Protein backbone atom coordinates (compact mmCIF):
# COMPACT_ATOMS: atom_id res chain seq x y z
CA UNK A 1 0.00 0.00 0.00
CA UNK A 2 1.27 3.45 -0.94
CA UNK A 3 2.59 5.58 1.91
CA UNK A 4 0.25 8.45 1.11
CA UNK A 5 -2.80 6.15 1.09
CA UNK A 6 -1.75 4.56 4.39
CA UNK A 7 -1.50 7.95 6.02
CA UNK A 8 -4.87 9.01 4.61
CA UNK A 9 -6.57 5.90 5.98
CA UNK A 10 -5.05 6.29 9.44
CA UNK A 11 -5.86 9.98 9.71
CA UNK A 12 -9.40 9.44 8.44
CA UNK A 13 -10.08 6.80 11.07
CA UNK A 14 -8.36 8.84 13.76
CA UNK A 15 -10.44 11.93 13.03
CA UNK A 16 -13.68 10.00 12.48
CA UNK A 17 -13.38 6.82 14.48
CA UNK A 18 -16.18 4.30 13.87
CA UNK A 19 -18.37 3.37 16.82
CA UNK A 20 -16.36 5.38 19.35
CA UNK A 21 -18.95 6.06 22.04
CA UNK A 22 -20.16 5.00 25.43
CA UNK A 23 -21.83 1.62 25.80
CA UNK A 24 -24.23 0.76 28.59
CA UNK A 25 -25.78 -2.30 26.96
CA UNK A 26 -25.24 -5.43 29.06
CA UNK A 27 -25.60 -7.72 26.09
CA UNK A 28 -22.10 -6.62 24.99
CA UNK A 29 -18.98 -8.38 26.27
CA UNK A 30 -16.58 -5.78 27.66
CA UNK A 31 -12.79 -5.68 28.02
CA UNK A 32 -10.38 -2.96 28.96
CA UNK A 33 -7.06 -3.04 27.19
CA UNK A 34 -3.94 -1.00 27.84
CA UNK A 35 -0.21 -1.00 27.24
CA UNK A 36 2.27 -1.01 30.08
CA UNK A 37 4.71 1.12 28.09
CA UNK A 38 2.33 3.93 27.10
CA UNK A 39 -0.88 5.64 28.08
CA UNK A 40 -3.30 4.18 25.55
CA UNK A 41 -6.34 2.84 27.32
CA UNK A 42 -9.36 1.43 25.47
CA UNK A 43 -12.64 -0.18 26.45
CA UNK A 44 -13.93 -2.55 23.79
CA UNK A 45 -17.51 -3.84 23.74
CA UNK A 46 -18.52 -6.74 21.50
CA UNK A 47 -21.93 -8.15 20.72
CA UNK A 48 -22.06 -11.69 19.40
CA UNK A 49 -25.09 -13.16 17.72
CA UNK A 50 -25.32 -16.71 16.39
CA UNK A 51 -21.56 -17.14 16.24
CA UNK A 52 -20.99 -13.88 14.39
CA UNK A 53 -19.80 -10.43 15.45
CA UNK A 54 -22.96 -8.35 15.42
CA UNK A 55 -21.42 -5.12 16.69
CA UNK A 56 -18.29 -3.63 18.25
CA UNK A 57 -18.09 -0.34 20.14
CA UNK A 58 -15.02 1.26 21.69
CA UNK A 59 -14.15 4.17 23.93
CA UNK A 60 -11.23 5.58 25.85
CA UNK A 61 -8.14 7.71 25.49
CA UNK A 62 -5.52 6.67 23.02
CA UNK A 63 -3.07 7.98 20.44
CA UNK A 64 -3.70 8.35 16.72
CA UNK A 65 -2.31 4.90 15.93
CA UNK A 66 -4.29 3.02 18.58
CA UNK A 67 -7.52 4.89 17.91
CA UNK A 68 -7.38 4.46 14.14
CA UNK A 69 -6.29 0.84 14.46
CA UNK A 70 -9.28 0.11 16.67
CA UNK A 71 -11.64 1.86 14.29
CA UNK A 72 -10.32 -0.13 11.32
CA UNK A 73 -10.47 -3.36 13.30
CA UNK A 74 -14.10 -2.71 14.14
CA UNK A 75 -15.05 -2.11 10.51
CA UNK A 76 -13.16 -5.19 9.45
CA UNK A 77 -14.57 -7.59 12.04
CA UNK A 78 -18.28 -6.77 12.16
CA UNK A 79 -20.16 -9.57 10.39
CA UNK A 80 -17.31 -12.07 10.68
CA UNK A 81 -17.54 -15.51 12.33
CA UNK A 82 -15.31 -16.32 15.31
CA UNK A 83 -12.83 -18.38 13.22
CA UNK A 84 -12.68 -15.55 10.67
CA UNK A 85 -11.99 -13.07 13.48
CA UNK A 86 -9.23 -15.29 14.78
CA UNK A 87 -7.70 -15.52 11.35
CA UNK A 88 -7.85 -11.75 10.89
CA UNK A 89 -6.17 -11.08 14.24
CA UNK A 90 -3.41 -13.57 13.50
CA UNK A 91 -2.70 -12.05 10.12
CA UNK A 92 -2.63 -8.54 11.56
CA UNK A 93 -0.23 -9.60 14.31
CA UNK A 94 1.99 -11.35 11.79
CA UNK A 95 2.13 -8.21 9.66
CA UNK A 96 3.13 -6.01 12.60
CA UNK A 97 5.70 -8.54 13.76
CA UNK A 98 7.22 -8.92 10.29
CA UNK A 99 6.09 -12.49 9.77
CA UNK A 100 4.40 -13.90 6.63
CA UNK A 101 0.73 -12.89 6.30
CA UNK A 102 -2.08 -12.82 3.74
CA UNK A 103 -2.45 -9.29 2.41
CA UNK A 104 -5.87 -9.84 0.84
CA UNK A 105 -7.48 -10.54 4.23
CA UNK A 106 -6.35 -7.34 5.95
CA UNK A 107 -7.52 -4.73 3.43
CA UNK A 108 -7.61 -1.29 5.16
CA UNK A 109 -5.64 -2.66 8.09
CA UNK A 110 -2.70 -2.80 5.68
CA UNK A 111 -2.28 0.85 6.62
CA UNK A 112 -0.02 -0.46 9.42
CA UNK A 113 2.14 -2.42 6.99
CA UNK A 114 5.25 -0.49 7.93
CA UNK A 115 4.54 0.22 11.55
CA UNK A 116 7.29 -2.28 12.44
CA UNK A 117 9.75 0.47 11.49
CA UNK A 118 8.65 2.39 14.62
CA UNK A 119 9.22 -0.03 17.43
CA UNK A 120 7.59 2.19 20.03
CA UNK A 121 4.33 2.30 18.05
CA UNK A 122 3.90 -1.38 17.27
CA UNK A 123 2.09 -1.91 20.55
CA UNK A 124 -0.24 0.99 19.78
CA UNK A 125 -1.39 -0.66 16.55
CA UNK A 126 -1.71 -4.03 18.28
CA UNK A 127 -3.61 -2.76 21.32
CA UNK A 128 -7.18 -3.22 20.01
CA UNK A 129 -6.27 -6.71 18.79
CA UNK A 130 -4.95 -7.56 22.23
CA UNK A 131 -8.36 -6.53 23.57
CA UNK A 132 -10.12 -8.61 20.92
CA UNK A 133 -8.08 -11.65 21.93
CA UNK A 134 -9.33 -11.19 25.49
CA UNK A 135 -12.89 -11.11 24.18
CA UNK A 136 -12.33 -14.36 22.27
CA UNK A 137 -10.98 -15.92 25.44
CA UNK A 138 -14.09 -14.85 27.33
CA UNK A 139 -16.36 -16.32 24.63
CA UNK A 140 -14.46 -19.60 24.79
CA UNK A 141 -14.84 -19.71 28.56
CA UNK A 142 -18.55 -19.09 28.24
CA UNK A 143 -18.91 -22.01 25.83
Amino acid at each position, binding site marked *: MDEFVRREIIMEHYQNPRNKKECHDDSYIKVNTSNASCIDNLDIFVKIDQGKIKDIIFNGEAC*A*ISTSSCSIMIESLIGKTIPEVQNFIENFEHMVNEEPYQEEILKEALAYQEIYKQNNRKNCALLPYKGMREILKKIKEDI
Partner: protein
Amino acid sequence: MNREDFPMLQKEIIYLDNGATTFKPQCVIDAIVDYYSNYCANAHRGDYDISYHVDEQYELTREKVQKFIHAKEKEEIVFTSGDTESLNMIARGFFENILEKEDEILITQSEHASNVLPWFRLAKKIGCQVKYIPLDDQHYVTMENVKKSITPHTKIISLAYITNVIGDKRPIKEICQYAHEHNIFVVVDGAQSVAHKKTDVQDLDVDFLVFSAHKMCGPTGVGVLYGKREFLEELEPINLGGGMNESFDSVDEVLLKPLPTRLEAGTPNIAGVIGLGAAIDYLTSIGMEKIEDYEQHLRRYLVDKMIKIPHIDIINMESDSAIVAFNVEGIFSQDVAYYLNKYNICLRAGNHCAKILKKEVGVTNTCRISLYFYNTEEEIDELIDLLKDKEKIWKEML
Protein backbone atom coordinates in the same frame (compact mmCIF):
# COMPACT_ATOMS: atom_id res chain seq x y z
CA MET B 1 25.63 24.63 32.44
CA ASN B 2 28.20 21.87 33.14
CA ARG B 3 27.12 19.96 30.04
CA GLU B 4 30.63 18.68 29.40
CA ASP B 5 30.40 16.56 32.57
CA PHE B 6 27.67 14.31 31.15
CA PRO B 7 28.35 11.55 28.61
CA MET B 8 24.64 11.40 27.72
CA LEU B 9 24.73 15.06 26.71
CA GLN B 10 27.39 14.36 24.13
CA LYS B 11 24.73 12.55 22.10
CA GLU B 12 22.43 14.40 19.76
CA ILE B 13 19.41 14.42 22.04
CA ILE B 14 17.48 17.03 23.97
CA TYR B 15 16.47 15.51 27.27
CA LEU B 16 13.49 17.15 28.97
CA ASP B 17 12.32 14.32 31.20
CA ASN B 18 14.39 15.03 34.29
CA GLY B 19 11.39 14.54 36.55
CA ALA B 20 11.57 10.86 35.58
CA THR B 21 15.31 10.48 35.97
CA THR B 22 18.43 12.57 35.44
CA PHE B 23 21.62 11.95 33.51
CA LYS B 24 24.75 10.98 35.40
CA PRO B 25 27.96 12.99 35.34
CA GLN B 26 31.18 11.14 34.58
CA CYS B 27 32.34 11.49 38.19
CA VAL B 28 29.34 9.45 39.42
CA ILE B 29 29.93 6.77 36.79
CA ASP B 30 33.64 6.73 37.71
CA ALA B 31 32.90 6.32 41.42
CA ILE B 32 30.74 3.27 40.71
CA VAL B 33 33.29 1.76 38.31
CA ASP B 34 36.03 2.47 40.85
CA TYR B 35 34.19 0.45 43.49
CA TYR B 36 33.61 -2.51 41.18
CA SER B 37 37.13 -2.34 39.72
CA ASN B 38 39.30 -1.49 42.70
CA TYR B 39 37.74 -2.38 46.04
CA CYS B 40 34.78 -4.66 45.36
CA ALA B 41 33.93 -6.28 48.68
CA ASN B 42 30.96 -6.52 50.99
CA ALA B 43 30.26 -4.00 53.70
CA HIS B 44 30.50 -4.68 57.43
CA ARG B 45 33.44 -7.10 57.03
CA GLY B 46 36.39 -4.98 57.96
CA ASP B 47 38.81 -7.88 58.42
CA TYR B 48 40.69 -7.04 55.27
CA ASP B 49 41.72 -3.77 53.62
CA ILE B 50 39.32 -3.55 50.70
CA SER B 51 36.31 -4.30 52.88
CA TYR B 52 37.44 -1.73 55.39
CA HIS B 53 37.61 0.74 52.52
CA VAL B 54 34.04 -0.19 51.49
CA ASP B 55 32.79 0.56 54.99
CA GLU B 56 34.61 3.88 54.98
CA GLN B 57 33.12 4.97 51.67
CA TYR B 58 29.66 3.69 52.55
CA GLU B 59 29.57 5.51 55.88
CA LEU B 60 31.19 8.58 54.35
CA THR B 61 28.20 8.82 52.02
CA ARG B 62 25.90 8.71 55.01
CA GLU B 63 27.71 11.76 56.37
CA LYS B 64 27.48 13.45 52.99
CA VAL B 65 23.71 12.90 52.92
CA GLN B 66 23.43 14.14 56.50
CA LYS B 67 25.20 17.38 55.61
CA PHE B 68 23.36 17.74 52.30
CA ILE B 69 19.92 17.70 53.95
CA HIS B 70 21.16 19.21 57.23
CA ALA B 71 20.12 16.31 59.44
CA LYS B 72 21.14 16.43 63.07
CA GLU B 73 22.75 12.99 63.21
CA LYS B 74 24.06 10.61 60.61
CA GLU B 75 22.14 7.75 62.22
CA GLU B 76 18.99 9.45 60.95
CA ILE B 77 19.99 8.59 57.37
CA VAL B 78 18.83 5.15 56.17
CA PHE B 79 19.74 3.88 52.71
CA THR B 80 16.88 2.23 50.83
CA SER B 81 16.20 1.27 47.24
CA GLY B 82 14.52 4.61 46.63
CA ASP B 83 11.71 6.99 47.45
CA THR B 84 9.05 4.30 47.01
CA GLU B 85 10.62 1.80 49.39
CA SER B 86 11.23 4.56 51.92
CA LEU B 87 7.56 5.59 51.94
CA ASN B 88 6.41 1.99 52.22
CA MET B 89 8.77 1.43 55.14
CA ILE B 90 7.37 4.49 56.92
CA ALA B 91 3.76 3.47 56.33
CA ARG B 92 4.20 -0.19 57.29
CA GLY B 93 7.06 -0.11 59.75
CA PHE B 94 6.05 2.96 61.72
CA PHE B 95 2.47 4.08 61.22
CA GLU B 96 0.90 0.65 60.98
CA ASN B 97 1.86 0.14 64.63
CA ILE B 98 0.46 3.39 65.95
CA LEU B 99 -2.58 4.26 63.84
CA GLU B 100 -6.08 3.52 65.02
CA LYS B 101 -9.41 3.12 63.35
CA GLU B 102 -10.64 6.67 63.84
CA ASP B 103 -7.39 8.25 62.58
CA GLU B 104 -7.09 10.22 59.37
CA ILE B 105 -4.25 10.56 56.88
CA LEU B 106 -4.11 13.78 54.86
CA ILE B 107 -2.64 13.85 51.35
CA THR B 108 -3.62 15.70 48.15
CA GLN B 109 -4.85 14.66 44.74
CA SER B 110 -1.60 15.75 43.13
CA GLU B 111 0.60 13.23 44.93
CA HIS B 112 2.65 10.64 43.08
CA ALA B 113 1.43 7.04 43.32
CA SER B 114 4.19 6.23 45.82
CA ASN B 115 2.74 8.77 48.23
CA VAL B 116 -0.81 7.52 47.73
CA LEU B 117 -0.88 3.74 47.52
CA PRO B 118 1.03 2.92 50.74
CA TRP B 119 -1.51 5.11 52.59
CA PHE B 120 -4.44 3.45 50.80
CA ARG B 121 -3.20 0.05 51.91
CA LEU B 122 -2.61 1.23 55.44
CA ALA B 123 -6.10 2.75 55.61
CA LYS B 124 -7.63 -0.48 54.37
CA LYS B 125 -5.73 -2.52 56.90
CA ILE B 126 -6.38 -0.29 59.91
CA GLY B 127 -9.85 0.81 58.83
CA CYS B 128 -8.86 4.48 59.05
CA GLN B 129 -9.34 7.12 56.37
CA VAL B 130 -7.29 8.89 53.69
CA LYS B 131 -8.52 12.44 53.12
CA TYR B 132 -7.48 15.13 50.65
CA ILE B 133 -6.40 18.69 51.32
CA PRO B 134 -8.23 20.71 48.64
CA LEU B 135 -6.01 22.54 46.15
CA ASP B 136 -6.58 26.16 45.13
CA ASP B 137 -7.23 27.48 41.58
CA GLN B 138 -3.58 27.07 40.64
CA HIS B 139 -3.54 23.57 42.20
CA TYR B 140 -1.51 24.82 45.14
CA VAL B 141 -1.71 23.76 48.79
CA THR B 142 -2.45 26.77 51.00
CA MET B 143 -2.04 26.96 54.76
CA GLU B 144 -5.69 27.94 54.98
CA ASN B 145 -6.76 24.70 53.30
CA VAL B 146 -4.38 22.66 55.43
CA LYS B 147 -5.91 24.14 58.59
CA LYS B 148 -9.41 23.55 57.29
CA SER B 149 -8.68 19.91 56.51
CA ILE B 150 -7.25 19.05 59.89
CA THR B 151 -9.66 17.41 62.31
CA PRO B 152 -9.06 16.07 65.83
CA HIS B 153 -8.50 12.69 64.13
CA THR B 154 -5.73 13.77 61.76
CA LYS B 155 -2.58 11.79 62.52
CA ILE B 156 -0.42 12.16 59.40
CA ILE B 157 0.10 14.77 56.69
CA SER B 158 2.08 13.31 53.83
CA LEU B 159 2.98 15.62 50.96
CA ALA B 160 5.49 16.05 48.18
CA TYR B 161 7.67 19.10 48.79
CA ILE B 162 7.41 19.78 45.07
CA THR B 163 4.89 17.84 42.98
CA ASN B 164 5.78 15.99 39.82
CA VAL B 165 3.15 17.36 37.41
CA ILE B 166 2.24 20.83 38.66
CA GLY B 167 5.66 21.49 40.19
CA ASP B 168 4.20 23.54 43.02
CA LYS B 169 6.17 23.91 46.23
CA ARG B 170 4.29 23.28 49.46
CA PRO B 171 4.70 25.49 52.54
CA ILE B 172 6.27 22.59 54.43
CA LYS B 173 7.82 24.64 57.22
CA GLU B 174 4.51 26.27 58.12
CA ILE B 175 2.69 22.96 57.76
CA CYS B 176 5.15 21.25 60.13
CA GLN B 177 4.81 23.98 62.70
CA TYR B 178 1.03 23.88 62.67
CA ALA B 179 0.87 20.08 62.46
CA HIS B 180 3.21 19.59 65.39
CA GLU B 181 1.13 21.95 67.50
CA HIS B 182 -1.70 19.50 66.85
CA ASN B 183 0.34 16.31 67.38
CA ILE B 184 0.31 15.40 63.71
CA PHE B 185 3.25 13.73 61.94
CA VAL B 186 4.55 15.23 58.69
CA VAL B 187 6.03 12.99 55.99
CA VAL B 188 7.65 14.71 53.02
CA ASP B 189 8.28 13.18 49.61
CA GLY B 190 11.41 14.91 48.35
CA ALA B 191 11.68 13.10 45.01
CA GLN B 192 11.22 16.30 43.00
CA SER B 193 12.76 18.76 45.43
CA VAL B 194 16.03 17.46 46.88
CA ALA B 195 17.72 17.52 43.46
CA HIS B 196 16.61 21.05 42.70
CA LYS B 197 16.82 23.11 45.86
CA LYS B 198 18.54 23.31 49.20
CA THR B 199 17.00 20.99 51.81
CA ASP B 200 17.21 21.60 55.53
CA VAL B 201 15.22 19.01 57.46
CA GLN B 202 15.90 20.68 60.80
CA ASP B 203 14.77 24.09 59.64
CA LEU B 204 11.65 22.58 58.04
CA ASP B 205 11.22 20.32 61.08
CA VAL B 206 9.87 17.42 59.00
CA ASP B 207 9.45 14.08 60.77
CA PHE B 208 10.32 12.00 57.73
CA LEU B 209 11.82 12.88 54.33
CA VAL B 210 12.35 10.46 51.46
CA PHE B 211 14.13 10.79 48.10
CA SER B 212 15.79 8.84 45.30
CA ALA B 213 19.37 9.15 44.09
CA HIS B 214 18.62 8.75 40.41
CA LYS B 215 16.64 11.98 40.23
CA MET B 216 19.69 13.90 41.48
CA CYS B 217 22.45 12.74 39.11
CA GLY B 218 23.00 9.54 41.11
CA PRO B 219 22.45 5.90 40.20
CA THR B 220 19.13 4.05 40.07
CA GLY B 221 18.12 1.64 42.81
CA VAL B 222 19.21 3.68 45.79
CA GLY B 223 17.48 6.26 47.93
CA VAL B 224 17.20 7.70 51.38
CA LEU B 225 14.81 7.55 54.28
CA TYR B 226 15.42 10.36 56.74
CA GLY B 227 13.57 10.30 60.03
CA LYS B 228 13.96 12.03 63.34
CA ARG B 229 15.88 9.63 65.57
CA GLU B 230 13.08 9.21 68.10
CA PHE B 231 10.77 7.99 65.33
CA LEU B 232 13.33 5.84 63.52
CA GLU B 233 13.95 4.08 66.83
CA GLU B 234 10.30 3.01 66.70
CA LEU B 235 10.34 2.03 63.03
CA GLU B 236 10.04 -1.72 62.83
CA PRO B 237 12.27 -3.25 60.14
CA ILE B 238 10.22 -4.68 57.25
CA ASN B 239 13.18 -6.80 56.16
CA LEU B 240 15.03 -9.03 58.56
CA GLY B 241 18.25 -10.82 57.76
CA GLY B 242 21.97 -10.38 57.53
CA GLY B 243 23.79 -7.29 58.61
CA MET B 244 21.01 -5.88 60.74
CA ASN B 245 21.03 -8.32 63.66
CA GLU B 246 23.34 -8.38 66.64
CA SER B 247 22.61 -11.93 67.67
CA PHE B 248 19.90 -14.58 67.52
CA ASP B 249 19.53 -17.85 69.39
CA SER B 250 15.85 -18.59 69.20
CA VAL B 251 12.56 -16.99 68.26
CA ASP B 252 12.52 -15.10 71.53
CA GLU B 253 16.14 -14.11 71.49
CA VAL B 254 16.74 -11.87 68.49
CA LEU B 255 18.77 -8.78 69.14
CA LEU B 256 18.91 -6.14 66.42
CA LYS B 257 21.70 -3.69 65.68
CA PRO B 258 21.29 0.00 66.45
CA LEU B 259 20.20 2.59 63.91
CA PRO B 260 20.59 2.90 61.00
CA THR B 261 22.02 -0.57 60.27
CA ARG B 262 18.94 -2.20 61.76
CA LEU B 263 16.91 -0.83 58.87
CA GLU B 264 19.34 -1.93 56.14
CA ALA B 265 18.99 -5.71 56.07
CA GLY B 266 20.97 -7.75 53.57
CA THR B 267 23.90 -6.63 51.46
CA PRO B 268 23.11 -3.03 50.63
CA ASN B 269 23.40 -1.39 47.23
CA ILE B 270 27.02 -0.50 47.94
CA ALA B 271 27.85 0.74 44.44
CA GLY B 272 24.67 2.77 44.43
CA VAL B 273 25.38 4.38 47.78
CA ILE B 274 28.91 5.26 46.71
CA GLY B 275 27.49 6.70 43.48
CA LEU B 276 25.04 8.77 45.51
CA GLY B 277 27.96 10.13 47.51
CA ALA B 278 29.66 11.23 44.30
CA ALA B 279 26.41 12.82 43.09
CA ILE B 280 26.11 14.84 46.30
CA ASP B 281 29.72 16.02 45.96
CA TYR B 282 28.97 17.00 42.39
CA LEU B 283 25.77 18.94 43.14
CA THR B 284 27.40 20.61 46.12
CA SER B 285 30.31 21.74 43.96
CA ILE B 286 27.84 23.52 41.66
CA GLY B 287 25.72 24.85 44.51
CA MET B 288 22.04 24.15 45.12
CA GLU B 289 21.09 27.84 45.15
CA LYS B 290 22.74 28.30 41.79
CA ILE B 291 20.89 25.28 40.41
CA GLU B 292 17.55 26.56 41.69
CA ASP B 293 18.09 30.07 40.31
CA TYR B 294 19.14 28.78 36.91
CA GLU B 295 16.16 26.44 36.65
CA GLN B 296 13.79 29.27 37.56
CA HIS B 297 15.33 31.41 34.85
CA LEU B 298 15.05 28.60 32.31
CA ARG B 299 11.42 27.91 33.15
CA ARG B 300 10.52 31.55 32.71
CA TYR B 301 12.32 31.56 29.38
CA LEU B 302 10.34 28.49 28.30
CA VAL B 303 6.95 29.67 29.53
CA ASP B 304 7.38 33.15 27.98
CA LYS B 305 7.81 31.45 24.62
CA MET B 306 5.09 28.86 25.10
CA ILE B 307 2.36 31.34 26.00
CA LYS B 308 2.87 33.03 22.63
CA ILE B 309 1.83 29.81 20.85
CA PRO B 310 -1.98 29.91 20.58
CA HIS B 311 -2.51 26.14 20.25
CA ILE B 312 -0.66 25.33 23.47
CA ASP B 313 -2.51 25.04 26.78
CA ILE B 314 -0.23 25.25 29.77
CA ILE B 315 -1.72 23.34 32.71
CA ASN B 316 0.54 24.82 35.40
CA MET B 317 1.05 28.45 34.50
CA GLU B 318 2.29 29.02 38.03
CA SER B 319 5.00 26.71 39.33
CA ASP B 320 7.95 26.86 41.68
CA SER B 321 9.98 24.26 39.88
CA ALA B 322 11.23 23.65 36.38
CA ILE B 323 8.20 21.60 35.35
CA VAL B 324 5.76 22.60 32.62
CA ALA B 325 2.73 20.42 31.86
CA PHE B 326 0.92 21.24 28.63
CA ASN B 327 -1.21 19.98 25.79
CA VAL B 328 -1.31 20.84 22.12
CA GLU B 329 -4.92 21.63 21.28
CA GLY B 330 -6.63 18.71 19.58
CA ILE B 331 -3.61 16.41 19.60
CA PHE B 332 -3.21 13.53 22.05
CA SER B 333 -0.21 14.06 24.30
CA GLN B 334 1.41 10.80 23.29
CA ASP B 335 1.29 11.78 19.62
CA VAL B 336 3.04 15.05 20.49
CA ALA B 337 5.72 13.10 22.36
CA TYR B 338 6.19 10.73 19.40
CA TYR B 339 6.48 13.70 17.04
CA LEU B 340 9.16 15.34 19.19
CA ASN B 341 10.98 12.02 19.48
CA LYS B 342 11.51 12.14 15.72
CA TYR B 343 13.65 15.19 16.40
CA ASN B 344 15.42 13.47 19.31
CA ILE B 345 13.58 15.44 21.95
CA CYS B 346 12.67 13.34 24.98
CA LEU B 347 9.68 14.35 27.02
CA ARG B 348 7.00 12.46 28.82
CA ALA B 349 3.34 12.04 27.92
CA GLY B 350 0.80 10.59 30.29
CA ASN B 351 -0.61 11.01 33.74
CA HIS B 352 2.89 10.92 35.28
CA CYS B 353 1.89 8.48 38.04
CA ALA B 354 -0.50 11.09 39.46
CA LYS B 355 -3.66 9.24 38.53
CA ILE B 356 -6.01 11.07 40.89
CA LEU B 357 -4.83 14.48 39.71
CA LYS B 358 -7.21 14.30 36.75
CA LYS B 359 -10.12 14.92 39.09
CA GLU B 360 -8.43 18.12 40.11
CA VAL B 361 -7.24 19.61 36.81
CA GLY B 362 -9.85 17.98 34.56
CA VAL B 363 -7.21 16.68 32.15
CA THR B 364 -6.12 13.05 32.20
CA ASN B 365 -3.01 13.16 30.09
CA THR B 366 -0.45 15.86 29.44
CA CYS B 367 3.00 16.37 27.99
CA ARG B 368 5.49 17.22 30.68
CA ILE B 369 8.73 19.11 30.32
CA SER B 370 10.97 18.82 33.38
CA LEU B 371 14.21 20.77 33.16
CA TYR B 372 17.50 20.42 34.96
CA PHE B 373 20.56 22.65 35.24
CA TYR B 374 22.17 21.13 32.16
CA ASN B 375 19.33 22.16 29.85
CA THR B 376 19.86 25.30 27.79
CA GLU B 377 17.96 28.14 26.14
CA GLU B 378 19.10 26.79 22.78
CA GLU B 379 17.37 23.48 23.50
CA ILE B 380 14.21 25.33 24.43
CA ASP B 381 14.41 27.34 21.19
CA GLU B 382 14.54 24.08 19.22
CA LEU B 383 11.56 22.69 21.10
CA ILE B 384 9.55 25.87 20.56
CA ASP B 385 10.30 25.84 16.83
CA LEU B 386 8.87 22.34 16.60
CA LEU B 387 5.82 23.08 18.73
CA LYS B 388 4.79 26.30 17.11
CA ASP B 389 3.96 24.71 13.76
CA LYS B 390 0.75 22.78 14.41
CA GLU B 391 0.45 21.71 10.77
CA LYS B 392 3.86 20.10 11.02
CA ILE B 393 2.91 18.24 14.22
CA TRP B 394 -0.27 17.02 12.57
CA LYS B 395 1.64 15.90 9.49
CA GLU B 396 4.49 14.17 11.26
CA MET B 397 2.91 12.72 14.39
CA LEU B 398 2.29 9.27 12.90
